[in-house]
């Protein structure tokens, strides 16, 4: 049985089309549709219920050493009030999950993981903790709204001056219309914006405050088209227990200046690579579609959709490093071969 987030009734009230996703009932879209919501975020502002995401706290003297051991990134230089992306690997280099680590202060971290992996991550981390480390799953107590788009700052500044100035920084105990919020300058859309963490009992009031400012709600559909245009990986697609981060062009987040689980496998040169494709024939390539080069199968589509910004079908694919050098590909979609051209990722980059 799927869980409901604390915002479930708000979604129904806003006309959301509810679907099961990662164990939760969430809106895939609202009445105006995915393309409208997508453009709203690219050009103005939109908000998403991302309360399904998992949150853990990790505290204690050995918290930092544990993060460095569990995750591919290095957290030594992470400052108070900042967040850093990380990937958690199995010893064979494939991926447990990708996540975000927030440093509140020394020995006090917040970790945000994918909903679909929450229980698995919790068990994995618990089994591998050492030393003095107090670890808790607080997912059921926390709700989260992502406010994304170029006008997000303008919305937040109507409530507070206490705004995290830099990307991947955050402020705690920010007062948004009387609601206590952890305000993080992060997101999953390729736009400027915030993720607002609050208690479950406050989230409907927070949603309503934003609605009253004219912010339109957006669903999972637009969240996917936005992150895909921005070339951002999604677990189960670009990362999985069969895909290593260095096969998905995420080597920047693997730091070999320390020990971590999966290190020895990730030191080897990857045999596959993630590329961006624009489908030039009519049709949409979706995940799992086989990718061909010179008549030979060289990989598969990890995510594919219609890009509302480019007005074209786009896809990310994981292909052999050799094939990744080429420019012309074919993708098998429902028995037809569609032509596709390689293009640099991301498909969309905002003007800063």
């Amino acid at each position, binding site marked *: 049985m799927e869980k409901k987030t604390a915002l479930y009734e708000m979604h129904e009230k806003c006309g959301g089309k509810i679907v099961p996703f990662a164990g939760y009932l969430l809106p*895939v879209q609202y009445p105006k549709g*995915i*393309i*409208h919501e997508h453009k709203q975020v690219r050009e103005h502002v939109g908000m998403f219920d991302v309360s399904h995401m998992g949150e853990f706290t990790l505290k204690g003297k050995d918290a930092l050493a544990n993060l460095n051991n569990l995750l591919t990134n290095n957290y030594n230089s992470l400052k108070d009030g900042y967040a850093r992306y990380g990937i958690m690997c199995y010893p064979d280099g494939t991926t447990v999950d990708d996540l975000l680590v927030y440093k509140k202060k020394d020995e006090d971290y917040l970790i945000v993981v994918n909903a679909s992996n929450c229980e698995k991550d919790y068990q994995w981390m618990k089994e591998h903790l050492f030393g003095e480390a107090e670890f808790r799953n607080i997912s059921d107590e926390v709700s989260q709204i992502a406010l994304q788009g170029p006008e997000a700052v303008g919305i937040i500044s109507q409530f507070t001056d206490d705004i995290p100035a830099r990307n991947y920084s955050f402020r705690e105990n920010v007062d948004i219309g009387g609601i206590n919020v952890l305000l993080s300058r992060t997101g999953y859309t390729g736009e400027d914006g915030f993720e607002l963490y609050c208690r479950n009992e406050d989230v409907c009031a927070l949603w309503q405050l934003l609605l009253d400012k004219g912010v339109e709600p957006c669903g999972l*559909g637009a969240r996917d088209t936005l992150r895909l245009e921005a070339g951002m990986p999604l677990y189960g697609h670009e990362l999985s227990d069969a895909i290593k981060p260095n096969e998905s062009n995420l080597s920047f987040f693997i730091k070999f200046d320390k020990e971590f689980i999966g290190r020895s496998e990730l030191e080897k040169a990857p045999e596959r690579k993630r590329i961006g494709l624009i489908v030039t024939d*009519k049709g*949409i390539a979706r995940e799992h579609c086989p990718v061909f080069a010179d008549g030979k199968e060289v990989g598969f589509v990890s995510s594919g*959709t*219609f890009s509302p910004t480019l007005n074209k079908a786009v896809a990310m694919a994981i292909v052999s490093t050799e094939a990744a050098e080429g420019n012309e590909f074919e993708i098998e979609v429902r028995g037809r071969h569609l032509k596709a051209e390689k293009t640099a990722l991301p498909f969309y980059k905002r003007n800063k």
Partner: protein
Amino acid sequence: MEVREELKYTATHEWVKDLGNGLWEVGITDFAQSELGDIVFINLPEVGDEVVKEEAFGDIESVKAVSDIYSPVSGTVREINKEIVERTEALNNAPYEAWLIRVENVTDCVELLDAQQYQEVCEHE
């Protein structure tokens, strides 16, 4: 959701209009377009192609998903709506005007539903 009295329907969410002179017009219903969401591509057969009842004669791609369109009749495609291929949003905005194909030489037909029966089908989905 709109269901029109003057049309006939299939349980797979196509509508059918008898244009007389043995010509049948086929489209997708308001329910279908609403379920699919924003439609961005459509593949149709060519004029002169045979369509067979209960078999797919084309597909529709929305941002979310791809969906087959099933033929309510067996016959020959006399016309396709070329305009709709270029302006797929018309399928979302006016599904009962946005016909897809016109079929002639109809030899067979599925059991069609009237508006009320079709309404009931939708309510059970």
